[in-house]
């Protein structure tokens, strides 16, 4: 442990004194405040805050990722290339201790830099409303929709496979199956139709939804129903009148006697855009089973459909902005730790430029992994199967940075759950990074340190 610590402190010293880190630090310290002024977004305070957090976080994350790759690769390869390792490895230190020391140094450097920069971003974000002299209404808007961490709950997914199977067999017996479509495509289409049917409501009828595990932290605050209307026939003014009833599910569904209050109001909203209605959080029953019912007003005279993706969800404040922010930083940290291990692995058997290139390629693939995987679906049928059995599994082995992208959550003030953080840490650090590290230690323990010189 002692030797690991000695190497770690030396690595940090190297990164700081060789001005690798200094360049990145200065760049960030200049760019972050500049961005806080220049990022205007859509002109509102919320827009400003969202743009700043989004850009600031992305920039910090990318620069720190690059720094991690460079420092971890450089500190190992330069030791080998400039042969300082001759005098280090012949001291009482095991080779794995040397690598672990380097890794620890890089991680410690990352932790301290992350703390510095996230503090900068956090304080700028908190100071912005005062700096721009925000009005009351603007303040309440950002307090409800930005300085918060809202959990979003979608209605439970419906299992329609049985019904789909029945329809399929019926169609098959009737010989009405479309000829130039594969089985999977027909099934996908039928499933989609079935699901939409479940979320459609005719005029004069009511459609109840059940949401479980709704746990707002403060019953005096509000929760929000976010929805989007789709219609079969567009009304003349493109508006839909709807009566919304929100309360205990037992009351909504079965009309049981309940103690919690019930929200019941009529609203008029335009179609095909997202809207939110504010509901007092006190309507949520203690068991967290919230019922939301929509009554399609007979005046509408059209079927209303809630789209599958973002048709309806319940949002409520589940944690503070600070808590969410810390978890966002943790997501970045797990990414950095993975990259540090990757850098160590690459430099355990590659020379400096090759190792850097190797790491950057992996970094880029991991950043755009869902885009790359998604794009395979658009390649022709035969080629696609070739890819999906060769490259796709490899990409899926890499971590998916975009899946755990913190800005995706911070900008719409979505809650980053501890479950998500644990998943990111577990997948990226505990499994993938550890695996890389073990390979690196093995390779490094058995390779020849000295160069072939005669």
């Amino acid at each position, binding site marked *: 442990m*002692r*030797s690991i610590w*000695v190497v770690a402190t*030396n690595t940090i*010293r*190297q990164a700081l*004194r*060789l001005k690798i880190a200094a360049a990145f630090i200065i760049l960030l310290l200049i760019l972050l405040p500049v961005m806080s002024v220049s990022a205007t977004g859509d002109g509102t305070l919320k827009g400003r805050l969202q743009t700043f957090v989004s850009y600031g976080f992305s920039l910090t994350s990318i620069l720190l990722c690059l720094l991690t790759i460079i420092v971890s690769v450089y500190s190992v390869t330069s030791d080998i290339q*400039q*042969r*300082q*390792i*001759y*005098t*280090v*490895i*012949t*001291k*009482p*230190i*095991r*080779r794995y201790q040397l690598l672990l020391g380097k890794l620890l140094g890089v991680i410690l450097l990352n932790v301290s830099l992350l703390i510095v920069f996230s503090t900068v971003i956090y304080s700028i974000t908190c100071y912005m409303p005062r700096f721009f002299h925000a009005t009351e209404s603007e303040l309440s808007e950002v307090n409800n929709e930005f300085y918060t961490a809202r959990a979003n709950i979608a209605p439970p997914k419906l299992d329609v496979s049985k019904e789909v199977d029945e329809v399929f067999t019926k169609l098959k017996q009737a010989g009405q199956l479309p000829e130039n479509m594969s089985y999977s495509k027909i099934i996908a289409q039928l499933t989609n139709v079935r699901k939409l049917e479940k979320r459609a409501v005719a005029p004069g009828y009511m459609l109840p939804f059940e949401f479980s595990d709704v746990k707002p932290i403060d019953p005096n605050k509000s929760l929000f129903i976010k929805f989007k209307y789709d219609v079969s026939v567009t009304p003349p003014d493109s508006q839909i009148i709807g009566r919304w009833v929100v309360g205990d599910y037992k009351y909504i569904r079965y009309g049981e006697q309940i103690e919690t209050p019930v929200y019941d109001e009529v609203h008029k909203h335009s179609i095909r855009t997202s809207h939110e209605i504010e509901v007092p959080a006190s309507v949520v029953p203690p068991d967290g089973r919230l019922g939301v019912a929509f009554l399609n007003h007979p005046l509408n005279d059209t079927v209303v459909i809630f789209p599958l993706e973002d048709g309806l969800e319940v949002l409520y404040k589940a944690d503070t902005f600070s808590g969410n922010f810390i978890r966002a930083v943790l997501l970045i940290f797990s990414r950095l730790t993975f990259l540090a291990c990757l850098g160590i692995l690459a430099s355990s058997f590659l020379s400096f430029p090759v190792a850097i290139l190797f790491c950057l390629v992996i970094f880029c693939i991991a950043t755009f992994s869902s885009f790359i995987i998604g794009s395979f679906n658009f390649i022709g049928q035969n080629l696609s199967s070739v890819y999906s059995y060769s490259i796709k599994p490899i990409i899926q082995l890499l971590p998916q940075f975009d899946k755990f992208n913190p800005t995706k959550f911070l900008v719409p003030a979505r809650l980053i759950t501890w479950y998500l953080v644990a998943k990111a840490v577990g997948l990226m650090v505990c499994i993938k990074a550890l695996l890389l590290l073990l390979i690196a230690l093995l390779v490094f323990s058995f390779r*020849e*340190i*000295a160069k*072939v*010189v*005669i």
Partner: protein
Amino acid sequence: MEYAIETFSLTKIFSDWWGRDKVIAVDNLDLQVCYNEVFGLLGPNGSGKTTTLKLLLGLLHPTKGRSVILGGDGSDPKINARIGFMPEESYLYRYLNARETLDFYGRLFGLPSKVRKMRIEALLDMVGLKAIANRPVGTFSKGMARRIGLAQALINDPDLLILDEPTTGLDPIGTRQIKDLILKLAERGKTILLCSHLLADVEDVCDRIAILYGGKIQAEGKVKDLLLQTDKKQITTGTVSNETLKRIKQLIQDEHADFELTCPMEKLEAYFIKTVTTAQEQAQPTSGAVSTTQIGDFLVSTTSKENILDKLVSSSVSQENPPQAPTNEQVVHTEGSEPEPDKELLSKLTKTAEPAQPKPVIQNEKVKTEPVEPETAEQEQIKKNVLDQLTDPPRRIEQDEHKQQVEEDKSQTGEASDA
């Protein structure tokens, strides 16, 4: 008998990318280095010296055979803790300064901070870098970096010191100092393995040598056994009258032996060190290394290891030991009774070796005679006087005649200490 280093048909073959054998760097090497021995590995460039050291230290894996070092494996931390290694060039972290560099290595050995501090100061003093200990080593010249390289090899007070080309890049004072250090450490019971192609250095310090060529040992044995010419004798005298000389010549010619008469010349090394020492005494400014010829106390002290540590932490460095005799004392060592043409033999054996450091030949009056008598207390006294006079240039010039006398005395004392 136990050996400090032993190799069993150690072989290293470098192969190319396809696994085809390219170069046989070390070929079935069976090497034995005893404890408490200064062993020199000689050989021309590319003869496998450094590769052998790297194999011993586990920096390279042997293709065949194995090596035992201090009774264990060269990559075992427990063994490493007792080894000091100085590679052929000082590979240092550019961004650390001299003191931090030594501190880094000291911490790798897990030395307690007090001991570490004492040793670092003592070593910096010894290698003459104390004044510039806070400069990044990236700005050091090659020789200065070498000195740090030496200091880092000594920081753990090693039982076995492995030196790869210890004197390359060093000025004559540094060279002399390393040689003195090696002798002192050997006196203290340390084992030293050095490899070099500077034959003069090897000749001065090594007990035993092996000459490598093509990865194989071509010759091995005690330096004295290899070089001693039993068919020649040499005698050194003080000032004698021409009459006496004539008589001696007559005596020798009666036995039909060769007779040659010359005055001994000072070695360039000695002259150089004398000049620099004088300048140092006049405190002329330098941005380079300032050699005190002192050797780190903890290295030369003959007490047990525990005691040294105690002493180091309890008392200041300068108080602990009286300063070692200045270099000049070592300088007065001359080849004395050592037969002269040895170097020819050495260079014959190592054909492609780089030219040895110029080493002025001391041509003493050579006469067949009995071996020189061992050093006495009186001679010790003479040595002191010699030192005084050598370090006092004005007096030396005035008393030129006296100097002649001194030179001759010197060669006598030199003989004694060489023996």
